[in-house]
């Protein structure tokens, strides 16, 4: 029996479909969610999240947020989320380097805050992109 997963960001509903399993990085460690999980509200930390659907693993890079589980309905409120296979590793590396550079040069509070958000996101993206490559080999 599958469960319904909804991934929501501040911009839009990214995904809404039936899945068999979710593995997500929470603040207290990675957890796996199967259908009929007990009701749970937890904080996600940046990392790789995978969805298993019809035996297929779909990896995502998530930069933080919340996961709410209510029996067969899971809602993930993500800060940013991206499908791992859509991340181009070389570009992610460049983006990370650029974010780091910006953080170094940031003068105002605003620039520092911006650069921190960006850097945190880029680091996770890169990690997830690399993990994906390791698994393929």
């Amino acid at each position, binding site marked *: 029996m599958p469960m319904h997963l909804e991934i*929501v*960001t*501040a*911009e*839009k*509903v990214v995904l809404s479909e039936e899945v068999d399993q979710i593995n997500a990085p*929470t*603040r*207290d460690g990675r957890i796996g969610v199967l259908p009929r999980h*007990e*009701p*749970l*509200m*937890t*904080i996600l930390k940046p990392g790789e999240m995978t969805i298993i659907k019809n035996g297929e693993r779909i990896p995502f890079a998530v930069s933080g947020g*919340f996961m*709410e589980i*209510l029996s067969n309905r899971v*809602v993930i*409120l993500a*800060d*940013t989320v991206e499908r791992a296979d859509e991340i181009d590793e070389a570009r992610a590396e460049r983006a990370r380097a650029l974010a780091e550079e910006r953080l170094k040069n940031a003068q*105002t*509070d*605003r*620039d520092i*805050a*911006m650069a921190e*958000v*960006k850097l945190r*996101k880029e680091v996770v993206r890169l990690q997830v992109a690399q993990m994906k490559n390791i698994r393929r080999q």
Partner: protein
Amino acid sequence: MASSREIKRRIRSVKNVAQITRAMEMVAASKMRRAQRNVLAARPYADRMRDLIGELTVRVVGSAKKGSLLEKRSQVRRVGLIVVTPDRGLCGSLIANVVRRATRFILDQRAMGREVDVFTYGKKGRDFIVRAGYPLAGEMVKIGDAPKIEDILGVAIQAVKGFESGRYDELYIVYSEYINTLVQRATIKQLAPVEAPAPASGARADFTYEPSQEEVLTEVLPRYVESQIYQAILESIASFYSAQMVAMRNATKSAKDLVKELTLTFNKARQAAITKEVSEIASGAAALAE
């Protein structure tokens, strides 16, 4: 009366203007539709956050502790105001309305003995605040048509941290609320302290919170405020394009009216010239016949 050649030239130039305003109207209309979609798409997140806060504030004892975004301070010395405007004009009275609302707010606050620091999104608002000489604490220009939340977080985080650290005792946002294509209203909203909504009814009592309810609440609150700021920016963009669309439609109509009027003047001038010529010929012929 102007020469018919001059009138002809004016007709041509007014027609050109009408063509441009018509094109701008159509561009604005299509961008407005996209902006509306973005506003709607962003709603589920903010709604869910609000529900969460409603549930958690009931559960967490003493959730309005010091430095929390829920904390109501007995004495308000300084407030932060976020002003959201478009980067460009040609949108009727939209900018003027937002700026007027902001000015009234600042003056009201000052009358109560409070200081106001201003944050701005959009070039027009920034320019106004600088010109008026109000203290500008942070700004962002070139927001674009469809910003992502991470693009706009810089100023938002600065304002939220300002509240948490105690620099600001209250946070407000003024923006152009999108009501429908014809109506946009300059609106002011309180961002912090967060007014906890009544918890949604239903059987959600048996939730386990990890690591704890308190920590979840601490994480949710700033994101909720940030998403509200984001929502206001998206609404402002939708408002901007619908105001621009209407303004350009009016401009096109005025230009067309003007062309009609000028054409009439042109025809009159032409007729007068012909009449004059005919009467000259006639009187010339009459003179010859004598």
